[in-house]
């Protein structure tokens, strides 16, 4: 028997899963990411350094900020620009608002309908209202500093070209305070769903607690700096998928994202987030990838608090310095909503990109996702076909993969 | 009263004239002006869609006014989809119409190209009603082909009191066509205007008006005796939005009917 899931709906981008079952055994399973390549790394060569963040934003419509922040960090390292504390703070606010907004879309629009066996979210009115309340506030934060929430413009190499007025910042804070309850309700909702039992073996990788450290750690003892990314990870091309896949050198698959972050850094979270985790029985190590959704919901609770603290700390000063040109090379790793994101640039003395390299969270996750799918299918071959298909899709969606990103 | 505030009107009757032209008989509420003159126009529209200037193709008749509209764009295509009994919005009347007082007592030559017949229809009606106030009245009427002729069922009545000459660019139906084929300028020789006593009203595409007016001048008419009706984009109808400005004239307020002498040779115009 062959099962072809031609496209997986409610994820970002195009991917399919093909299973071959013979004699009650899973013969093969392939996750094919057929999202067409756009060749970002190819056409970035020849573009100016200050265009890079605007270009890479278009890798992904759901996490443009993550790409921008990462590329800006890498480029600033390349040209020797050191951002002020204020700039670092605002970039973190941007990242947090994006992580939350992305999680909210993922939890409500992409994942939630499965639990209600629905094709899409329409009909779940209370949930839609909660989603829209949260979206309004979170997009508002991104837009206040970025100009717009999707593909922001005010965040550039050198800082932020314009800051919102003081009273706008006040409104953002009260907005965030206003959705604390919604965040708790979101976690309650997600943690309340039954998820299939699945415990695949993989290495959980994330940045160490301080998000701006650039230090990558794992539950298998990995510890490396973003500059040495290439020594620790290895990327390879596949014949059946446009996305490349990345492994931990000498070991194998890895998982990045909310679940890994919480497994590694739960103790650095805000107390309310830790309490919420405890309350819902989230105790590392959590190996079930379906629990990624719960981890995301816990993260939202944390991010709201961190965001409020940072907004409170804004000074409104030193938000932009025109950067000077310099030849150089820079790498950066940040936590995108879906996990580790790596950007690397080589600039010539005119500030033109000579080489660009981008490894996205989904590229990091592809192998562990495929392995997990394998395990899920193997252990559930007795399920009715439709249910098996749905569970496979749910697992893919739990990873919150971004196929557009992974191919780019 | 806000000059831009539209009044509600109800479509009492819709008549398909040609494939893309319909005549709408419209009942307007009581406040609408009784003083309408041929050649004036309304801003006709629908909320959410916008407004467009549309000439009167009939003035007050049985408590209704008439508009004849070709579906070409946002507003007109929307109107095209309405049905009898539907509401629409309009405001007016706007602009200077045909100078009927100048025409009275003289020979009158009416030249209409295509939809240009619509704004001349009230003139024809007035002539028919007070036939004695005018001298010889001729109507030259051109269309792309037979299928594009407007108001065909009224021709017989018109012919009883005025001379009607028809021409089409090309005959397409294959039915016998007992009239001219060719540009409307070709009809000018059929009427031989009495150069001193004739007054001409010309309306149609600007390029057609150009050649008709030149033809009339070549046949001895004076520019001051020729009147044309111009079409420009309009958003307000009250000389404020500026869209219809034509070398300093507001077509909505100073026109749409102008003495040819006033608008010939202006930049960005074809006359």
């Amino acid at each position: 028997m062959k099962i072809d899931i031609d496209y997986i709906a409610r994820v970002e981008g195009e991917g399919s899963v093909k299973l071959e079952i013979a004699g009650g055994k899973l013969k093969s399973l392939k996750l094919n990411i057929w999202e067409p390549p756009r060749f970002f790394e190819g056409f970035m060569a020849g573009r100016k350094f200050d265009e890079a963040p605007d270009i890479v934003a278009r890798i992904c419509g759901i996490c443009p900020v993550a790409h921008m922040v990462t590329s800006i960090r890498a480029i600033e390292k390349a040209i020797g620009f050191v951002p002020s504390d204020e700039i670092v703070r605002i970039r973190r606010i941007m990242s947090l608002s994006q992580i939350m907004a992305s999680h909210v879309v993922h939890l409500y629009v992409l994942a939630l309908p499965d639990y209600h066996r629905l094709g899409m979210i329409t009909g779940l009115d209370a949930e839609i209202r909660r989603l829209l309340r949260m979206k309004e506030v979170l997009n508002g934060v991104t837009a206040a500093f970025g100009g717009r929430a999707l593909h922001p413009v005010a965040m550039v190499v050198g800082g932020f070209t314009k800051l919102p007025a003081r009273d706008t910042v006040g409104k953002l804070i009260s907005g965030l305070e206003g959705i604390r309850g919604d965040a708790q309700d979101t976690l309650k909702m997600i943690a309340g769903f039954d998820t299939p039992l699945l415990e695949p073996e993989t290495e959980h990788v994330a940045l160490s607690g301080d998000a701006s450290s650039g230090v990558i750690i794992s539950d298998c003892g990995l510890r490396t700096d973003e500059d040495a990314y290439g020594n620790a990870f290895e990327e390879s091309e596949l014949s059946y998928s446009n996305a490349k896949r990345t492994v931990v050198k000498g070991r194998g698959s890895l998982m990045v994202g909310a679940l890994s972050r919480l497994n590694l850094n739960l103790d650095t979270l805000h107390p309310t987030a830790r309490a919420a985790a405890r309350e819902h029985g989230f105790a590392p190590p959590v190996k079930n990838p379906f629990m990624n959704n719960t981890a995301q919901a816990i993260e939202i609770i944390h991010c709201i608090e961190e965001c409020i603290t940072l907004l409170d700390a804004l000074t409104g000063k030193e938000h932009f310095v025109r950067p000077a040109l310099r030849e150089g090379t820079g790498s950066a790793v940040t936590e995108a909503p879906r996990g580790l994101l790596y950007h690397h640039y080589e600039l010539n003395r005119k500030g033109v990109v000579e080489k660009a390299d981008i490894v996205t969270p989904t590229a990091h996750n592809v192998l562990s996702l495929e392995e997990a799918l394998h395990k899920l299918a193997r252990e559930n071959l007795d399920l009715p076909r439709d249910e098996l298909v749905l569970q496979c899709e749910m697992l893919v969606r739990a990873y919150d993969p971004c196929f557009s990103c992974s191919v780019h | 009263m806000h000059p831009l505030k539209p009044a509600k009107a109800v479509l009492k009757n819709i008549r398909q004239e040609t494939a893309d032209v319909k005549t709408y008989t419209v009942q307007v509420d009581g406040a609408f002006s009784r003083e309408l003159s041929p050649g004036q126009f309304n801003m006709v529209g629908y909320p959410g869609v916008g407004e467009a200037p549309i000439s009167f193709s009939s003035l007050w008749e049985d408590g209704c006014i008439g508009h004849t509209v070709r579906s070409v764009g946002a507003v007109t295509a929307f109107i095209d989809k309405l049905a009898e009994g539907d509401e629409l919005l309009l405001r007016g009347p706007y602009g200077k119409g045909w100078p009927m007082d100048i025409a009275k007592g003289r020979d009158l030559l009416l030249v209409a190209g295509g939809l240009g017949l619509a704004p001349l229809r009230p003139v024809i009606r007035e002539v028919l009603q007070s036939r004695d106030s005018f001298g010889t009245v001729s109507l030259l009427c051109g269309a792309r082909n037979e299928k594009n002729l407007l108001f065909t069922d009224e021709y017989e009545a018109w012919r009883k009191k005025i001379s009607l000459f028809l021409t089409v660019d090309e005959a397409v139906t294959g039915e016998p066509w007992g009239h001219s084929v060719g540009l409307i300028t070709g009809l000018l020789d059929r009427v031989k205007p009495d150069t001193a006593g004739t007054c001409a009203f010309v309306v149609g595409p600007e390029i057609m008006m150009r050649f008709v007016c030149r033809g009339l001048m070549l046949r001895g008419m004076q520019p001051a005796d020729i009147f044309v009706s111009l079409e420009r984009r309009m958003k307000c109808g009250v000389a404020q939005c500026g869209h219809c400005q034509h070398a300093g004239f507001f077509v909505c307020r100073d026109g749409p009917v102008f003495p040819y002498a006033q608008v010939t040779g202006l930049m960005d115009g074809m006359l």
Partner: protein
Amino acid sequence: MYGNGMTGAPASRISDFLVPKASFFRWLDSLRESFSVVGPVAEEDRTVFREIASADELHMEYASTMLSPGKVYLYSPREDLFRISFGKDLTIEEPPRSPVQRIIAGIHACDTHAVFYLDRTFLGAFRDPLYENRRSNTMLIALNCSAASRNCFCSSMGAGPFLKAEKGYDMLLTDLEDAYLVEIRTERCRVLFNADATQSADAEVFRRKEEKERSALRTFTKTINTDGLDRALRENPEHPVWGRTADERCLSCANCVMVCPTCFCHDVVDELSMDMKTVRRYREWDACQDARFAEVHGGNFRARRTARLRQFVTHKLDQTHQYGVFGTVGCGRCITWCPTGIDLTEMAKAIQTRKA
């Protein structure tokens, strides 16, 4: 040539005062209780007109602003006309008229003339109630200019640097170093005026005003010869300067029109609500430089960039039969804010001297 303003009855008696600046600004500050006071304020390195929170914010010795206060505060960039609701019945509501009483302080002579020009459009044969409401709720405190900016040519247009019109505004200020000569033009302003330490202005004060005007006039570097100007432009619609400027420099960006204090054109837009229940009908500034502006079914009267550029320039320098005055007040904004610096006075000169 100008001066058919419409506001307020003329002051019943000559009311000209010499007022120490401090005292004048104290008076202006006191008006903030019942008026929204708008004036020139320095923001970063530019001056803009906005509502002030204190007279200390005023920066009265400003060069021309990007947008004129009249165009922004009397004829607003975007403004709701009606709210139409579908329901059982169509209802058409006018938004409530703004009750705001406003003072525009420090409006230059050219911009005051530009207001008179807008009056001709919005208070002509058809009166626009929104404009009319704001015009009569707004007091204009005009200010004579003591120096021209690089692109000013108001002296050639009779619109500045000193304001000669006697009516159509409420008060005229002339900067006499530490004091203003305050000339009150309307009764409503006379009633309101109670600055302390005022003296009535004597002949000596007016002599100083004249001196100021002479010195202001000496600062002009840009001029235009208005003699036969309108005819010259009208008769040379195919002069090469049109096509050349349009091809090589004109961006069709419409900045000239948008900053022009006399440009009155606007679009009327219907915005449907997503639930299809209501329509917001509003107007917003539109520009003849936009290719869509003169488009009709089957053609576009100004499809060429040349024709659009020529429309703007001739509307300012030629089409005098429209309102009996030139369409420009000589503020020079279209020159200053054209990204490629197209200068209508230079184009006019090229045509007047028949130079290709």
